[in-house]
């Protein structure tokens, strides 16, 4: 059992096989946790397809399985794994994060208040929002 932390949250992946460098997941888990599917044109997420480097396809796709760690590195995203390999973070890419910020569109998020209720930034659209951080020290 491997826990995957992706942009969409925390996912428990039962059939995953993790080594130091690779994280092989079933096609179903790769799609459910990370949103990627294998197609003839390469690995795809929604309308975007990434062609696999010629001759290296087996590093990414093997039968029905997808190596998410290899895909993430190939895309220039950060990958961090726990020492035992039981938790993996499939993180963001600096390039994409920079581009998103440069658009000046305030990225949406959902965070809980103390009662556990989730608030989205977009719930407050139409107001001038003063988003301020603090810490209890």
């Amino acid at each position, binding site marked *: 059992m491997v*826990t995957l*932390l992706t942009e969409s949250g*925390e996912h428990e992946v039962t059939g995953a096989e993790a080594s130091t460098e690779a994280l092989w997941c079933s096609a179903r888990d790769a799609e459910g946790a990370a949103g990627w599917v294998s197609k003839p044109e390469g690995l795809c997420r929604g309308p975007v397809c990434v062609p696999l480097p010629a001759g290296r396809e087996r590093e990414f796709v093997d039968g029905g399985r997808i190596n998410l760690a290899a895909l993430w590195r190939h895309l220039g995203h*950060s*990958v*961090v*794994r*726990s*020492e035992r390999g039981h*938790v993996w*973070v499939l*993180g*963001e*890419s*600096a390039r994409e*994060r*920079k581009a998103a*910020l*440069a658009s*000046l*569109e*305030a*990225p949406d*998020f959902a*965070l*809980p*208040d*103390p009662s556990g209720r989730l*608030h989205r*930034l*977009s719930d*407050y*659209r*139409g*107001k*001038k*929002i*003063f*988003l*301020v*951080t*603090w*810490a*209890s*020290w």
Partner: protein
Amino acid sequence: MWQALQEELAGHGFQVIAVAMDSREGDPLPWIDAAKPTYPTLIDREHRLAELYGIVNVPQAVWIDEAGRIVRPAEPAGAYEGFRQMNRVTREMPEDVARRTAQAKAIYLDAIRDWARNGAASAYAFTADQARAHLPAVTEESVTAQAMFRLAQLLLRRGEREEAERWIREASRLHPDSWCIWRQGAGVTELGLAAQPDFWSRVDALGAKRYYAPVDMPGMP
């Protein structure tokens, strides 16, 4: 401080959203209770706002207009370096430093008022080009550090404290400008984190570098 501002400016479509960059269980709750805020106070254990907005310290704020556009990227919210010159035993500040600290806060609060009342016409609301020029740095290291921090938070929740602490230290090493990451990795004593020798030695190591990044507003110290 934000509660008074929220009440004063609510009629201008102004909304405070406060986010606690705390990852210790239960930590911000007594503080939120004491402040009795009418605005939302959210808890960001995994520091999602650090990933999305480049927050590296508190208090930092982002101004977002009615259309969801960033008009002032992450910057210190009325905070000033003054504390670095306070007497570490008596916690007293030299008079001129205390004056500059108060001045920084007053200028910042007035800037918020001006923006709330005048919107895009406010001199404090950046144009798109100005806003882009003030965006925080995002690097491969900072992005990887946030991923490590997220890993650490999950390990902490599962009781794997030792490994979690190693990841927080590694994240802090990769992204030394983030006081938010460092703060969650530092041990807490009964003195409170800010009174600890570890904190002061890290602040002193900054030398001429700012603890709170400079804020681009006229007259700001």
